[in-house]
């Protein structure tokens, strides 16, 4: 007899996600992912000036704010066939990289590590042994026995107050928690250190973007950062050097803590390389453009069908027709008026039609996007697999380092195939973060070198033609492929669609009733205790779900369900 588990909401994310699972024989046999809020930003944009779209679309969310701003101007620039000054590309690239590093650190330590790390168990740890273990893995300065003793004492004092604060509602003592007290203490220490480090990445975004969350510096045609080497009030030497300082601190933490922790936790939870596979069609896009036209990129991306790396098809420019023509969205299982089959975003419609949660009908505010008819997975794993296929050296180097560390801790060989899993998504995210730190260093150097040549241009003025034009912009955001699609008529927005990473991953069943990536990944997940479905959270959190932008005004219907309170 199958049991139904409903987790609503899945928290530690932005927005509101509901997951339903049928559990039979201790395993998930059927799953549904449902976005429980409506977004509506497309309607707000209709009739507006395309030069304002970026400022409005980035208000979709307070977490990934930069990404919608940048991809929106890319879409409008694409419609106008514009070139963007090199400095503007590089400044945007630095914001993209710094934002991604911030996002990945926060996701791993603050939004998902507690699925694997038992903070209460850390109270039993021996700080000296913890330090010995930590120092055998990494040269990080924050691993010593005094630090571990300090963290443990703090934790003990904290728990004594009777308030777990940030650690309340964790699945402490759950049978699926496998780490030793020492590893738990080490991870908790790094959780706290990560709180300090993540700010450095945000400072880079704030210096370049004038503000975070919600950067203020992008413009259709470039950026609004005046450059001068002899002025304190614009982007000059002083600010560039401050950024460099922050990059170096991030590099130390990411390489010597984050990557090491992911390898270690991955090794201790090696059985989780067998769960969470799901959809193996992987889509990523190239990013960090190195020229004014968007035809050369620092980082490759493309399509891998059915996990076959040999069949990798690269996406190569901001005008790439293969990408442009491949994307469609179905609303057969989403709360929108349909009946026209899957539609290309230029023709996309967002007309609400709420039914109720219907297992075989409509059950989500998230649409179901496909790439040439296939449901695809996006995100760091898609990216790393594309890097493996494209033989992208920095990416492969970081991948080999993480796998190498995990192999030496687990004392076993780990094949590349192990990446198609819950743990694999975490490993891939760490690899991306390591690589992004290097990209950020490079983009900084390229910007400094370009300014040194005397180029201080940051903006080309957009001209809007009479009549209708359309354009698309893509961006490899922290959670995967993000694209905005705009139709402009006589200088005003006629249609606008955002196809966001979590739309791809949290998609409901598609036009052919094929399950979406979250849904497919959950099948086969073991459930030790249906009242405390930690394992479901592990797999869903491994995608780094973020619903605010994936769903299309607030659902005021309060569905009465058996709800499992989930952290």
């Amino acid at each position, binding site marked *: 007899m199958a049991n139904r588990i409903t987790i609503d909401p899945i928290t530690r994310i932005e927005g509101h996600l509901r997951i339903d699972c049928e559990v039979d024989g201790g395993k998930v046999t059927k799953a549904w992912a449902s976005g429980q809020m409506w977004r509506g930003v497309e309607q707000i944009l209709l009739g507006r000036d395309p030069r304002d779209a970026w400022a409005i679309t980035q208000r979709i969310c307070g977490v990934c704010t930069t990404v919608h701003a940048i991809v929106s101007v890319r879409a409008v620039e694409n419609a106008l066939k514009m070139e963007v000054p090199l400095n503007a590309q590089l400044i945007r690239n630095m914001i993209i990289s710094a934002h991604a590093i911030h996002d990945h650190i926060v996701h791993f330590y603050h939004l998902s590590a507690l699925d694997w790390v038992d903070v209460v168990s850390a109270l039993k740890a021996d700080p000296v042994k913890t330090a010995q273990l930590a120092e055998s893995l990494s040269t990080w300065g924050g691993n010593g026995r005094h630090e571990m003793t300090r963290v443990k004492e703090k*934790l003990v004092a904290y728990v004594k107050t009777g308030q777990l604060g940030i650690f309340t509602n964790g699945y402490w003592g759950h049978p699926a928690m496998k780490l030793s007290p020492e590893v738990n203490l080490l991870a908790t220490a790094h959780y706290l250190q990560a709180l300090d480090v993540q700010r450095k990445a945000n400072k880079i975004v704030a210096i370049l973007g004038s503000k975070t969350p919600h950067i203020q510096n992008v413009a259709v045609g470039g950026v609004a950062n005046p450059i001068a080497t002899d002025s304190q009030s614009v982007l000059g030497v002083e600010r560039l050097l401050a950024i460099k300082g922050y990059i170096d601190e991030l590099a130390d933490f990411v390489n010597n803590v984050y990557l090491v922790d992911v390898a270690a936790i991955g090794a201790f939870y090696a059985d989780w390389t067998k769960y969470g596979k799901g959809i193996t069609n992987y889509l990523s896009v190239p990013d960090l453009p190195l020229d004014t036209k968007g035809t050369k990129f620092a980082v490759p991306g493309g399509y891998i069908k059915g996990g076959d790396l040999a069949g990798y098809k690269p996406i190569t420019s901001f005008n790439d027709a293969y990408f442009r023509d491949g994307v469609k969205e179905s609303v057969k299982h989403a709360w929108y008026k349909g009946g026209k089959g899957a539609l290309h975003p230029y023709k996309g419609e967002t007309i609400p039609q709420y039914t109720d949660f219907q297992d075989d009908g409509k059950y989500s505010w998230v649409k179901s996007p496909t790439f040439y008819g296939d449901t695809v997975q996006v995100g760091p794993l898609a990216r790393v697999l594309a890097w493996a296929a494209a033989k992208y050296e920095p990416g492969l180097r970081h991948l080999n380092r993480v796998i190498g560390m995990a192999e030496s801790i687990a004392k076993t060989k780990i094949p590349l195939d192990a990446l198609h899993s819950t743990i694999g998504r975490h490993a891939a995210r760490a690899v991306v973060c390591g690589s992004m730190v290097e990209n950020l260093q490079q983009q900084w150097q390229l910007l400094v070198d370009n300014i040194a040549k005397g180029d201080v241009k940051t903006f080309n003025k957009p001209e809007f033609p009479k009549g209708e034009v359309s354009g698309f912009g893509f961006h490899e955001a922290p959670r995967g492929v993000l694209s905005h699609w705009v139709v402009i008529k006589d200088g005003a927005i006629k249609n606008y669609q955002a196809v966001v990473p979590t739309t791809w991953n949290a998609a409901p069943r598609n036009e052919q009733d094929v399950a979406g990536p979250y849904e497919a990944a959950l099948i086969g997940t073991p459930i030790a205790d249906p009242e405390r479905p930690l394992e479901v959270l592990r797999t869903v959190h491994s995608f780094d779900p973020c619903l605010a932008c994936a769903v299309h005004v607030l659902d005021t219907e309060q569905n009465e369900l058996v709800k499992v309170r989930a952290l």
Partner: protein
Amino acid sequence: MAMRVVVLGIGNILLSDEGVGVHAVEALRADYQVPAELTLIDGGTSAMELLEDLEGLDLLIILDAVRAGRAPATLIRLSGNQVPVFFRARLSPHQVGLAEVLATLDLLGNPPRETIVFGIEPVSLETRLGLTEPVAARLPELVQAVVDELGARDLAVRARSVAAVNRMSPALLA
């Protein structure tokens, strides 16, 4: 070292009285000159972004909508042991974020030496810009209570003269 004090207004101005803390801190900014050791922050609905601004403070004054079960539009002041209770009971809808920030400051070893919460019992939390009339009517008292609290600690918060404000505003509007 000089004292470091923050007056933090938090809340969501899209949800009528939920935004009273933000309206209060903005009124304070508009009507008063504050000394260098005092920082006024419109925290909106942010959370961990506030970490750095709230590190190592001598005094943190939080302005917020407080649901304590009193009559609507009642002025509320919480201090000492009442503050953790305020957070445990989650009297304010967005408090999870701020509670996490304060817990984190505690774990990092640099929490505020003293925290005081000033608030008003909301009348309505419906989706609407602006405060309800009863709460708006008490806003000047809330601001005055904060000014008095600061004054009692020798933090000279001086009212801008009406004439000065009038002189400024045409220029600001231009």
